């Protein structure tokens, strides 16, 4: 095992498809040794392997203050090779490794968000090593050069348990992933099954088989309602789309059944707008809102949503709506009408709307001295 495996600070993985990678990354990060985070011990003291104290330092020209050295302990396999002392980084590969006597030279190339190249050498004895690496990188168009120095000193014996640790971490990751995929299938979180790097992509067929089944079962309004209540309409529609199942057909069939059964709560749920437009004139049109039977409000609320507003001829040709009322009308305070709400029908003129010309005059009167 290498004495100084390290990784850069992990990137933030926000998207779920990156979860699998994140879990594996977590396992490798747990083995990460110096620098960026808390060291996780993957060995125990005493045993057949070698315990080393490692010190690492980074210098960058132009930095006002030197970065502090990082130290940690590492457990090397007894049968280690000289190149095992080369520092490892995520997204980096080591090339051109040459060993001459007790000296190892190497090149390093890193890709990804912060690409860089470097060359280094390490000189070692059975109980110590010293190394240096020159690193070049480009950030925001600016070239930077850094020098990384590292040294190790054998201080005792240990047992390397990193392989066991990786196996445990992978097993924990696998079972967590299985749970996530199971829950997500129930919730129809299609992105986890059908995206390019979807974390549950291996179960895509099972997921789409399930959606295909829903395409048939959801033709029953009761099933339709239950599925939408559990997974939300956005996820239902997204899942149908992702699996090439025709949602419109399923929805239309369910709506048709609901319309026949006068299941207005279903018809008004937002999936049956053609049926709402068909039924609305019969059950909602021309009625006072507060007189509409409560069993119809879902239908009529949707009808109002679809037909009132820009482009719709609001109330054209309809009889005047009953006015709000007052038990005593407007009798009372002089030059004042009384606020109230009862049953007397009073055509109510809307308050005058703003006149742009008058607005202009008013604005100018404020600005000009006349």
């Amino acid at each position, binding site marked *: 095992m290498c004495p100084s495996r390290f990784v850069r600070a992990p990137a933030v993985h926000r998207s779920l498809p990156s979860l699998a990678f994140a879990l594996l990354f977590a396992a490798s990060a747990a083995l990460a040794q110096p620098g960026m985070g808390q060291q996780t011990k993957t060995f125990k003291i005493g045993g057949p392997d070698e315990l080393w104290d490692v010190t690492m330092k980074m210098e960058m020209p132009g930095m006002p203050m030197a970065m502090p050295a990082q130290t940690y302990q590492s457990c090397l396999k007894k049968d280690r090779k000289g190149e095992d002392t080369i520092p490892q980084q995520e997204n980096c590969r080591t090339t051109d490794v040459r060993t001459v006597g007790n000296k190892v030279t190497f090149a390093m190339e890193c890709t990804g968000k912060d690409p860089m190249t470097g060359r280094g050498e390490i000189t070692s004895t059975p109980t110590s090593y010293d190394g240096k690496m020159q690193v070049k990188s480009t950030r925001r168009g600016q070239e930077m050069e850094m020098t990384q120095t590292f040294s190790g000193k054998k201080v005792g014996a240990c047992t390397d348990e990193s392989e066991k640790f990786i196996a445990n971490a992978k097993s924990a990751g696998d079972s967590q992933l299985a749970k996530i995929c199971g829950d997500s299938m129930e919730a129809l979180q299609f992105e986890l099954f059908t995206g390019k790097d979807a974390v549950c992509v291996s179960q895509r067929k099972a997921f789409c088989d399930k959606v295909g089944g829903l395409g048939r079962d959801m033709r029953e309004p009761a099933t339709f309602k239950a599925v939408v209540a559990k997974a939300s309409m956005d996820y239902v529609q997204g899942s149908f789309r992702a699996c090439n199942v025709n949602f419109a057909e399923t929805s239309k069939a369910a709506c048709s059944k609901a319309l026949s059964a006068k299941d207005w709560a279903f018809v008004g749920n937002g999936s049956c707008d053609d049926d709402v*437009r068909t039924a609305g004139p019969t059950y909602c049109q021309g009625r*006072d809102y507060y007189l509409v039977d409560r069993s119809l409000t879902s239908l009529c609320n949707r009808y109002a*949503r679809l037909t009132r507003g820009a482009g*719709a*001829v609001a*109330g054209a040709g309809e009889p005047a709506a009953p006015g709000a009322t007052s038990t005593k009308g407007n009798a009372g305070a002089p030059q004042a009408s009384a606020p*109230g709400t009862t049953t007397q029908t009073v055509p109510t003129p*809307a308050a005058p709307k703003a006149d742009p010309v008058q607005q202009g005059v008013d604005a100018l*009167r404020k600005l000009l001295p006349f």
Partner: protein
Amino acid sequence: MARRGLVVAVALAAAAWLPAAARAAEPPNPWPDAAAAYLVRIDGVERWAAAASTRQKPASLTKILTALLVLEAVAPTAEVVVSARAARADGARIGLAAGMRMRVADLLTAMLLRSANDACLALAEHVARSEAAFVAQMNARAVAMGLKDSHFANACGFDAPDHYASARDLAVIADTALAQPAFADIVAREQGTARTRDGRVFRFDNTNVLLGRVDGARGVKTGWTKAAGRCLVGFAQRGNTRVLVVLLGAPDRWWDAVAMLESAFDEARGSRVPAPSSTAPAPR
């Protein structure tokens, strides 16, 4: 004369410019015929509006501010003695008689659900000893809330030349009031009762018919006077999405409020339902 001509000419030029400038500042107006002024806010952000800063007659929406001041001043359990003046109040009322003793909470319920002016006056007089003193407090509170287009001449919403509020200001008042749990609790009820100390019970329905008919509706208040027309502040919450609508001078306030609320919730969930643009006849 020439000066007047100049004013008119420049005014016409300004008029041509003003609507464009107003459009840049104001949210879209998909319901141009719905109300003299209206405002729709989704999670506190204005989404649609028309003339939302113009000064309108607020009618009984005034009582939202009245309730807020009452709740800030006295405990809901405090006892109020109804004055003769309050008992004679015009318009909507529950029929209080002078000398009746009632809890503040009961009067608030009558004022907010039934829009009862007798309860409203009794509360105003209880808090500030006189309606005039209470109105002074209302105007001071309006200034403190930063309301620039509101002024109140009475506690209950009677029309008067210097009694006005904008839709935008009323939204601020409603938000502030809804933050009071006691207020939010009362305006969410479909029915209410008010009891006198000697056991008489008044029962009434909430005039806000959105409750129980619109999914997630939680209040707030209706209003009507001849000059104001039909008015409404409506509030609904679905999941974490909160929608507030204010309509002033709205001939068909219920249907339009419903359309606005439903559109707002569609908007909030990024619905692919087409924007309201159907040519089908609208419900009344």
